[in-house]
């Protein structure tokens, strides 16, 4: 089986500081990988390098494109990369306002992604928007409201609908449940798990919340100071951590 994403020796430096370095892994279709580490460990830098928001200083990020198979997204042209990020990729930001247009209606936010891939029929776009609002549990009668009138959890669900409406194959998520209260978080996790299974999505989730990765991710990567220090099956890394830092991380979680 061809991996959906093949990452080889990615490195990003901020001047002489290490953002992240020597990161390599393969991600297969349907797999969800978590990246954990404390703030400053390089996990967001890595995610942004993978998603084409930052240009890595070294390494290759090969994505299995529908037309030509594995292509290095670091060296491909800007229009090609932007096309990927509108079709096969999705990026869910921690703060919904970074991923939404706050002064456009909820329906417009979902419809915009569709229009970017050349949907033009108003009725069809609106029907798809309604369908997706339903799937993320937003009531149809809120379709013409702006996200500014939504709660934090609803904004996050709207962002997910906007991202998934084009049927992407790879979703990048940066702390998707950060800043939400726990009951909203649980609902969002349940929603994401269902979508991953139904759409056979692959996902890379950056978070510092070990409980979130245990429930969502098949595999886990632990980062510290820009380096990957441990990888493996999620439950194995959490239940039998090998590296001193991972042991510290796992044992520091407060029990509820």
């Amino acid at each position, binding site marked *: 089986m061809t991996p959906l994403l093949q990452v080889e020796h990615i490195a990003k430096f901020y001047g002489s500081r290490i953002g992240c370095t020597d990161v390599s892994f393969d991600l*297969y279709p349907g797999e969800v990988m978590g990246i954990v580490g404390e703030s400053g460990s390089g996990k967001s830098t890595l995610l942004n390098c993978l998603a084409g928001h930052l240009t890595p200083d070294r390494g290759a990020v090969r994505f299995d494109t529908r037309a030509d198979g594995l292509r290095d997204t670091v060296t491909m042209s800007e229009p090609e990369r932007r096309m990927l990020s509108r079709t096969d990729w999705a990026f869910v930001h921690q703060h919904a306002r970074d991923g939404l247009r706050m002064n456009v209606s909820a329906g417009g936010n979902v419809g915009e992604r569709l229009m970017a891939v050349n949907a033009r029929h108003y009725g069809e776009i609106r029907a798809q928007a309604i369908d997706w609002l339903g799937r993320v549990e937003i009531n149809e009668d809120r379709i013409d409201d702006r996200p500014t009138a939504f709660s934090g959890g609803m904004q996050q669900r709207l962002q997910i609908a906007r991202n998934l409406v084009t049927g992407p194959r790879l979703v990048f998520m940066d702390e998707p449940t950060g800043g939400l209260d726990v009951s909203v978080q649980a609902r969002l996790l*349940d929603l994401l798990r269902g979508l991953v299974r139904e759409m056979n999505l692959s996902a890379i989730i950056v978070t510092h919340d070990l409980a979130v990765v245990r429930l969502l991710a098949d595999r886990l990567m632990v980062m510290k100071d820009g380096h990957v220090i441990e990888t493996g099956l999620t439950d194995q890394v959490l239940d039998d951590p090998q590296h001193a830092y991972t*042991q510290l991380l796992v044992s520091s979680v407060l029990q509820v």
Partner: protein
Amino acid sequence: MIRIENVSKSFVLHNQGAAEIPVMQGASLRVAAGECVALVGASGAGKSTLMRMLYGNYLTASGQMIVGDLDVAKAAPREIIQLRRYTLGYVSQFLRVVPRVSTLDVVAEPLLMTGTSMDDAHAQAEILLARLNIPQRLWPLSPTTFSGGEQQRVNIARGFAYPYPALLLDEPTASLDPTNRATVLDMIAEAKARGAAIIGIFHDAAARDAICDRQLDVTQFTPGLAA
């Protein structure tokens, strides 16, 4: 079906003076299809550890851990994910679920993961829950608020939803009343009859004698405990 050859394992606690604790040495075991083997030994002897190593939940330091045609001790994460999806089931002592997900969906999930349709998976889950005496009014609720015995039964229903060729059972009959205990023993017997290779931990000696073909004392593999 299951072949464990000369495996060892130790825990290194880096944050507690790098203490190295050997927990398993020279463990070997073979389980054929349709056979049930009980792991016995005092608490702390390594019964659950051996089971978790076999499931890929704990890393194996050396030796072979073969389930079907995969060596779990050396397998890549995605190979273990496939193994857990289609070949190796595990009923742990504790239920771990996403909050808010209904009991019916919790039990149906292993079937959905293997491509069964939602309707068929739910139908199968309903049969199992009814058989294990979980009241129907509880099915739409999340099991997180259930009693210990109810959670245990939901966990068993989930573990038996898909017909895995190999099963690991960690105390499946603990905290169950006699009626449900008998049902669970029946389910284990049925799994054996369809050819599943089973490794179990049973503190309940009567249950162990009723269902297991032989037993293995893991104390002999515990470094520092063996005579």
